[in-house]
Every structure is written in C-alpha cells, then in structure tokens.
C-alpha cells in the first residue's frame, strides 16, 4: 500500500482510472446535452415571452398569450429560485412516488439539468433580444419581414452572438453543477470519485483527483468557447473589389474599432 499522498493518488488512478474516465465522460455528456436542450428550451420561452401582439389582435389571442407568458414566468421563477439538487430529488422521487415512474438515472439527470438550464437561458436570451436596437426590427418590418422572419434572420443571430459569453458560462456551470446529480445516483464524475474513495477510505486523494479533472475540463472548455466566439465574428477585414477588368486592384481594409 502506498504511504504518501501522491503515492495514493497514483494508486487510485491506476486502480480506478477507467472509473474516473467514465465519470468524466458522463459529466461531459450531461453538461453538453443539458446545455443544448436548455438553450433550445430557453430560446422558445424567450421568444414567447417577447412577443408583442399587434394592437389589432383579438381579445382571445391576447388572453391566451397572457396566460402562456404568466406560466413561463412561474417556470423561470421556480427553477431559478430553488437549488438544482432539490429539483433533482423532487422530480426523481416525485415521479416515482406520485406517478409510479422510475426514470432511468441518465434520463432524469438530463431532464433536470435541461429544464434548470432552460430557466436561466430564457432570461439570458430575453436580455439578448431586448438589447438589440429597435431600429433593426423596424428596418426589417419596413421591408416587409414578419415578426418571425425578423427574429430568425436579424434579431436572434445578433442576440445570440452577444450572449455567447453567457451561454458558455452556463455550460461551464453545468460541468461543475452536474455533480449535485449524484444525489439521484447518476454515475457522473463526483459520484465515481465517491466510489473510488470509499474502498480504501482515501477521501482526500480521490476528491483531489476529481477536483483536478473538473479544473481541466472547465479550463479547456473556456478556451474552446473563446476561440468559437472569435470565429463567429468573421474575418477582421474585408476586400474592396476593384474594377471588374482589373481584379488585381483588390485591396483589404481593416475593421475600424
């Protein structure tokens, strides 16, 4: 048996390397799928919450939209106002006891993290939509685009670009906070660390390994996201086309500011 701290770290890695690896994979999977589904859910919620009806719309339409918007408001309030660890237990055990549904752990994990992320994303995206200058929407309407076309072609691409840092941040949070899903026995990284620690009672070493892996994940992901953001901005320069009969006259102009 090892006698030093790093000796134990090496021993645990040797014994439980594949366990840690699978845990890492599960954590990443939950975080990625949860962030994507949460984003789509948030997008839908944000769009519905930002619909402004034509003043000529009927009373029925108006009432329907009001009710839908109120329900979505409650959803956001509830899921942002309670800890995810509580949401996970309430949903998992609630489904079991009240509806007699035994969700597979992985399904429950992705379900919980998606609707939790959706609540945050909805507010982030709504903020992004609101921050786009009204002139963009008016210009789109003035050439005849509908509300929906304006959203898809003009407003959302700009809003989403602007909130990319916040979306990335949600992803990083999900990598870390998916650890609370160990309460419903999802075999993510923290849960696997707990298993590895238990056999030899080497809690410090096992959780040290877990901590290092989380740090590597978030460090790498943060760098990748920043790279993607820069890609999204497109080239820094554009080409001014020369006269058609002299294509060598093309030159390049750097972006201002």
């Amino acid at each position, binding site marked *: 048996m090892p006698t030093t701290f790093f000796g134990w770290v090496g021993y645990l890695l040797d014994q439980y390397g594949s366990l840690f690896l699978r845990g890492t994979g599960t954590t990443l999977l939950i975080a990625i799928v949860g962030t994507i589904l949460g984003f789509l859910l948030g997008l839908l919620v944000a769009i519905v919450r930002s619909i402004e009806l034509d003043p000529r719309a009927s009373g029925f339409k108006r009432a329907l939209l009001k009710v839908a918007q109120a329900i979505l408001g409650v959803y956001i309030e509830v899921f942002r106002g309670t800890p995810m660890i509580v949401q996970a237990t309430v949903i998992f055990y609630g489904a079991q006891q009240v509806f007699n549904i035994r969700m597979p752990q992985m399904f429950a994990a992705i379900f919980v993290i998606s609707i939790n992320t959706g609540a945050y994303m909805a507010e982030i995206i709504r903020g992004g939509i609101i921050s786009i200058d009204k*002139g*963009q929407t008016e210009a789109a309407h003035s050439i005849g685009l509908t509300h929906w076309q304006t959203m898809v*072609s003009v407003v959302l691409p700009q809003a989403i*670009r602007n909130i990319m840092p916040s979306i990335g941040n949600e992803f990083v949070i999900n990598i870390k906070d998916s650890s609370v899903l160990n309460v419903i026995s999802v075999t993510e990284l923290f849960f696997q660390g707990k298993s590895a620690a238990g056999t030899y009672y080497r809690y410090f070493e096992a959780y040290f390994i877990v901590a290092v892996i989380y740090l590597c994940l978030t460090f790498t992901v943060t760098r990748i996201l920043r790279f993607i953001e820069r890609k999204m901005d497109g080239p820094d320069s*554009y080409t001014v*086309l*020369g006269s058609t009969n002299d294509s060598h006259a093309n030159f390049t*102009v750097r972006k201002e500011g």
Partner: protein
Amino acid sequence: MEHVIEVNHLRKSFGSHEVLKDVHFTADKGEVTCIIGASGSGKSTLLRCINLLEIPDGGEVLFHGENIQSGKFSLPQYHARVGMVFQQFNLFNNLTVLKNCMLGQMKVLGRSAQESEQNAMRFLEKVGMAQYIHAKPKQLSGGQKQRVAIARALAMDPEVLLFDEPTSALDPEMVGEVLSVMQDLARTGLTMLVVTHEMGFAREVAHDVVFMDDGVITERGAPEQVLLHPQTPRLKEFLAKVL
C-alpha cells in the same frame, strides 16, 4: 393626377401627448415632397404612421385609394411597396452589404438568390457601393451605410420611399454623397417623402414642401412659395433659424 398616398384626419397620441392632430396630406406619383418643421413637431411620427411602424389613433392612410388598415393589404406586401430610409441607417448588423440588400427580396418577394443578388448589385452600383458588398455595416462610414440603406430599400422595387432625416446623423462631409444619390432617384420617377433640414435640397429637388408645426400641417406649396414667401409667423421664425 393620382394620389399614391393620401392621409386624412390623421391623429396620433403618445399617452396624453397629442403628436399628430388632424393631419391632411397627399403625395402624387413621381413627386418629391419635403416635410420640414421644428424638432418634435411630429414629422417622424407622420412617416411612421404612413409606414404603420406606429398605429394611428384616428383618421386614415390611403394607398392608391385603399385604406392600408382595412385588411385588404397584407402588411408585408404593403411594406414592400412603401419603403423607408432611417436617420440611423438601421442596416442589419449581422449581414454583409450584399445580404442586407437581398434579404427582403428573398423572404418577402420570394425571389431566387440569384435574381436577388443581380438586383441588389444593380442598386448597389447605382449608389456607388458595389465595391463593398462583402463588408459588414460596422466597417462602413455613415455616408456609405446610408447609401447601402437606400439600395436596400430600392431593391424591393418600391413605389414610394419615405426618408426620415437621412443626412442628420452624418458628418458634414458625407451629406453631399447621400443627397446626390437622392437627387438622382428623384429623377427616376420614384415617389419620395423626405423629412429633411437640408433646405438646399428641398428647394432644388422637391415638387412640394410641407411645413409641419406642432402636429398640424400649416403650409404647403411649391418650394419657392413656402421657402421664400412664408405666410405664417411660425414658418418665418423656423426658416430664419435654419437658413
């Protein structure tokens, strides 16, 4: 002469602030009408009501004799016929110059990408921006942006173009390039309603000049008449300030 646009008894309030009070107004085919008046007199609101960016509280706007709110018009089709050029340009920031001029053609008029591009190029050449088709709006100067915005509006083949102070946000040295594009347009027989403080432009290009004062049109006529022989003290006062 056929009225392309006719405005009757138009009223619009924001809260308790009555901005348009019983406005009457017509624009004839192929004519350029300049709307002048002090800041806050309701010029923008008038254009925005004509384009239904604001919903009027009362009165009517007729397009070829049809009430634009009667439901006979689909709003997108009406917008395609009546375009608008804004003081702040409002180019789509996420799209290149070329795509700015293609979007409406493809989504609203249902034109193919190829046809839209050809048409867009035609108007970008006209405004002298064909060299910049790959640039994004933030890479352009104000004058260049406004010329692209004009090309974007023209690419929809509109009958009427509304201009809301198209040169007011420009540095002085760029005003000329935009006005000269507009002057060329006026000769093509496009119906234009232009809110402007450029009295030189109004005098040279306009068929009609309209003076708006505190939500009503108080004087209207040929440029020489309105600009050189103002009738009301308010217009005299206004002209003394801007000329």
